């Protein structure tokens, strides 16, 4: 919106560039290691090719001073032959360098991306709460491409150009040191100016990057919030905000262009002046017969050959700097601690990890005396919450008996969703413990915990895959029959059957877009398909119409009869799926009982369920939310 645009923070340019770029880049070594031989070979080949480029002027000199001056047509053939050979060698070496690194560098990029992806998948949900997906994506794409480019060009060419400049200087000075000095005079000031420029430019470039980011945000929001913008007729103010940002970006870009123009002016002028001066001095010396014409030609050709290596130092350094930033950004994520796959106490048999047959726990094991799902003094505080705020959940004591369904009721924002996220260990309690079938959840590995628990989230997410794949991801080894059963429970069999290719229809971002209610039903099917031992449903029926809701409830009731379940509920109709109800208020469980008990005894619950602040005797009314 118009006003939000202005408040979008202008991210300050990040820390000075003088943080050690080299140290950052060295962190790439483990990924580069497997291809090191090829990389070194490529660098060697490049140096060789570059030196050949420097030898060509020498052949020219020999040609001009030798056969040409001596009017020896036969000798020119030899010179031409040398030139040709060197030319072929140079071209082939160029190619060899590229061929050597083409596949290896692509594989370095791919390996880094894969490592990032693996890592990101295993980072705790709390990490994902903090990081915008765009930030992670840009690391996996732009930054990694930048790194591949760095390994392919700046890294090699900083070395090659250094070597070329060195060899070129030696050649120039050896041929005629006085002229050489004149020609090389601008090298030092050029390098200094380039690095000064590069520092300034990096700041401007970073600012532009941030402004592009802000711009992207406005574009994104204007697309995602299009219904609201249209609904309130706000597209003009949105366009104003956009316009302002694009103008700001333009100003920065023009500033960048000014810097660029200035440095290019210097880069073009200084060497040209040096070459002009060399030409004039050289001509005088040739006229005095102190210098051969061939040497002058060779000199100027060498100077020409050195132009690019000198000019490019600036942008090679800039690219290296960018690569260092990209490396930092990459490792920022990689350094985040992934959740360990082991439980706190590893001595847990893997027998129970199978996707869980329903049915009661085997008797006899004393540890299972308190079976079911038990919360004992559980406290949870979001890692990014302010210090002075109370924890989101505290002192949660709740016992859900095996096979029992517990409804979780609470006002908007009371922490219901947070509580459910603790069971599949998406978050871990900051204090207290949760036990499943008598075993501490923390002692199970996350994989084991999640094999026991299935969840239907409030926001039903479908992946770009077929309906069948989306549902069956809820269970390993589930069969066609399980799929159909789950679809029936969620009352999804009807609309799935009507899809163009039934259960094989592609859905998700890249497939058919389904309505909220349809997605919710598929998410529900996913949760029940594996007949999990523990089922967590977060307001599973909110997007369904009354009719469908009634049908789903009837089917779900049969599933819940044998499953230990925790169901977040907003409505009496959903609550009635449960055997008992827990009331969550201010981060605590304040009451547990049957729907009717709570309705009678607990004013807060009565309010939540009926919308009136009435006390006892309101049961009838509340149940109704009725049309009168």
């Amino acid at each position: 919106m118009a006003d939000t645009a202005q408040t979008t923070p202008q991210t300050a340019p990040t820390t000075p560039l003088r943080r050690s770029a080299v140290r950052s880049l060295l962190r790439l070594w483990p990924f580069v290691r497997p291809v090191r031989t090829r990389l070194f070979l490529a660098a060697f080949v490049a140096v060789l090719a570059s030196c050949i480029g420097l030898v060509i002027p020498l052949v020219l000199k020999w040609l001009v001073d030798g056969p040409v001056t001596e009017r020896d047509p036969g000798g020119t053939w030899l010179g031409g032959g040398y030139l040709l050979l060197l030319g072929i060698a140079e071209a082939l070496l160029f190619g060899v360098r590229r061929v050597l690194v083409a596949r290896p560098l692509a594989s370095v990029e791919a390996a880094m991306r894969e490592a990032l992806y693996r890592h990101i998948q295993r980072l705790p949900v709390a990490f994902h709460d903090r990081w915008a997906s765009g930030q992670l994506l840009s690391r996996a794409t732009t930054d990694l491409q930048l790194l591949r480019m760095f390994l392919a060009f700046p890294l090699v060419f900083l070395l090659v150009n250094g070597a070329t400049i060195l060899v070129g200087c030696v050649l120039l000075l050896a041929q005629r040191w006085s002229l050489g000095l004149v020609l090389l005079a601008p090298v030092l000031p050029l390098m200094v100016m380039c690095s000064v420029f590069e520092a300034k430019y990096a700041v401007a470039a970073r600012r532009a990057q941030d402004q592009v980011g802000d711009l992207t945000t406005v574009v994104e929001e204007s697309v995602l919030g299009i219904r609201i913008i249209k609904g309130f007729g706000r597209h003009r103010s949105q366009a104003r905000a956009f316009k302002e940002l694009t103008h700001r970006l333009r100003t920065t870009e023009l500033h960048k262009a000014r810097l660029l123009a200035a440095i290019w002016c210097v880069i073009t002028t200084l060497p040209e002046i040096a070459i002009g001066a060399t030409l004039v001095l050289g001509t005088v010396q040739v006229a005095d017969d102190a210098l051969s014409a061939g040497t002058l030609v060779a000199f100027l050709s060498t100077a020409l050959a050195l132009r690019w290596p000198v000019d490019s130092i600036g942008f090679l350094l800039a690219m290296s700097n960018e690569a260092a930033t990209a490396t930092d950004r990459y490792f920022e994520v990689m350094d985040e601690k992934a959740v360990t796959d082991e439980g706190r106490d590893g001595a847990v048999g893997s027998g129970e990890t199978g996707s869980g047959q329903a049915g009661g726990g085997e008797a006899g094991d004393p540890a299972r005396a308190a079976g079911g799902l038990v919360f004992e003094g559980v406290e949870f505080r979001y890692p990014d919450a302010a210090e002075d705020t109370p924890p989101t959940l505290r002192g949660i004591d709740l016992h859900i008996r095996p096979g029992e369904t517990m409804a979780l009721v609470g006002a908007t924002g009371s922490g219901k969703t947070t509580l459910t996220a603790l069971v599949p260990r998406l978050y871990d309690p900051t204090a207290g413990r949760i036990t499943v079938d008598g075993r501490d959840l923390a002692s199970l590995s996350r994989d084991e915990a999640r094999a026991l628990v299935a969840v239907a989230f409030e926001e039903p997410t479908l992946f770009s895959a077929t309906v069948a794949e989306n549902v069956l991801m809820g269970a390993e080894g589930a069969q066609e029959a399980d799929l159909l059963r789950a679809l029936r429970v969620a009352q999804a069999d009807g609309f799935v059957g009507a899809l163009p290719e039934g259960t094989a229809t592609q859905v998700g971002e890249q497939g058919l877009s389904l309505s909220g209610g349809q997605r919710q039903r598929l998410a529900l099917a996913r949760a029940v398909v594996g007949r999990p031992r523990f089922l967590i449903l977060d307001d599973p029926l909110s997007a369904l119409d009354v009719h469908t809701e009634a049908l789903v409830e009837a089917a779900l009731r049969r599933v819940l009869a044998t499953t230990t379940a925790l169901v977040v509920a907003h409505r009496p109709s959903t609550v009635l799926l449960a055997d008992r109800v827990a009331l969550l208020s201010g981060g605590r469980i304040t009451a547990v009982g049957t729907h009717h008990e709570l309705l009678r005894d607990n004013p807060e619950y009565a309010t939540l369920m009926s919308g009136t602040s009435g006390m006892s005797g309101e049961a009838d009314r509340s149940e109704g939310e009725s049309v009168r």
Partner: protein
Amino acid sequence: MTTTATDLPADDHEGADAPRPPAGSDAFERDVLPTPKGASRSLLRSLLAPHHRRVWTIAVLLLLQQLAVQAGPLLVAYAIDHAVPALRSGDHGPLIAVALVAALCATASGGLQFAFIKVSARVSQDALLDLRGRIFRHGQALSLDFHERYTSGRLISRATTDVESLRELLDEGLQELITVVLSTVYITATLVFLDWGLGAAAVASAAPLHLFVRSFQRRSQRVYSAKSTAIAAVIVKFTETINGIRPVQAFRRERPNDAAFARLNHDHERVNGTATLEMARYVVSSRLVANFAVAAIVLWGAYRVASGGLALGVLAAAALYLRRLYDPIDRLGMFLNSYQSAAASLEKIAGLLAQRPGVPESAEPVALPAVAAGRPGREVEFRGVRFAYRTGGEVLPRFDLTLAAGSTLAVVGATGAGKSTLAKLLARFYDPTEGRVLLDGVDLRDLSTAALRRGVVMVTQEAFLFSGTVAENIAIGRPDATRAEIELAAKAIGAHDFITGLPDGYDTDVRKRGGRISAGQRQLVGFARALLADPAVLILDEATSSLDIPGERAVQRAMSTVLQGRTAVVIAHRLSTVEIADRVLVMADGRIVEDGPPATLIAGRGRFAELHAAWRESVR
């Protein structure tokens, strides 16, 4: 590519049990909108046209700059062939001329380069500014119907990555190309001028080079498109995993995902390597031709100098020029790559811009009549309205409907019955295929956007929050509202308590740390927005689905007090919402099957009575 595309709840609730007609393999699906022939070229022309004077300046600057840059070897030739003999005979004139021209060329080439970069940056930045604005405005102007089919991700990438690839072309590519062309022309001309035989030989060498460039262009186009498809697949998988991290972890998808991602990533790796190899192949072959040409031409020149047919200085200049002539062939390859990506992007942008808004704003808006005092609602009339998708699927058969000003209408029915479509017609998110929707007798199509939104506001189930503070998000309803008015609206809807409980109250940034706002709370903010907008007609489309019952009650209270006398249309799954309605409409398969006061319908034996009974049953 971005982020949030998959967060969006699917657009409408109508999709339902009958899959939406415009699916399948149409143009939207494949992301190729019909683009008129030559549209991308005329787009580029129209972007540059306002700057034609600058474009000419750029051309002249480059022409002069290349002249200055390419003068060097000519000076060498002159110095060796004229200044040296002149010096030997004591004449310093030619040498001084060489010095002066060299100095002039050096400063001129630098100065002109400076001017060129500045002017061309102006042009390219202005063109990009223009293009970004056009895409943005156009995207906003296009109807909801379009947005629902085009998907947010694509629109976002049009405005970001596609513009970016055009920027690369304008910033670097074009200069490169013009420089290459100019220097080639200059150098060839100079060579011909120095010695037409050498010049002709250089021209002849262009033929095989041309072949290599063409073949590279063809091959790289293929590889390039394979590469962009491959990276797109990687990006989709990546984004999807991040946005669905909860289900991914809860259902232990990590390992299967690793494998699936590795496969996509490997595909990309392969194409990526192939692309580099194509480039290598091009560089080697063109370099070989170039170096062969240099050797041959120099050899021939040297032979002629040796046999007395050519001046030494000319040979020197030719040798220097030849190196320069073939220098840019590598860069030409890179230019071709960036050109290809820019051309593809431009094509996509042109396709987007060629879409006509389905719901255009009236060119000659009509004003609404003044609202009657004490009765702030307006009368709504659907007159002979029919609605069908452009692809032919009929959603609402022809119907008539009049809502009295100030009345509250509840619309119920199963998913897919056409409730949301009815609401969207009234909000003018769509225009009817036939018939008219009238607000106090004025066709919605004749209203200005501002008047329309003072008249009708729709609150949907999906309550999107824009980045910014909570207060700013509410103020979207009425940007000139004071803080007191914003708080009043929040209080009326029952959102005040949770907002003051946020770290910075109304000034809490919704995208920042601690700004966790639940689905229900987002819906409350959406309501506060609508309350602040204070429209004559309010449409609620599933707007209370994530609210708990007290929240829903607060909304109902607000409607009966703050919005008293407004016309309201309420679509809800919850029959509880029907309580506040004066009139209920039951829809099935796009038709109005029952219509009357709630009490009458319940008492009757129709669908509503049935629905109501079933619902009572489920609640019991």
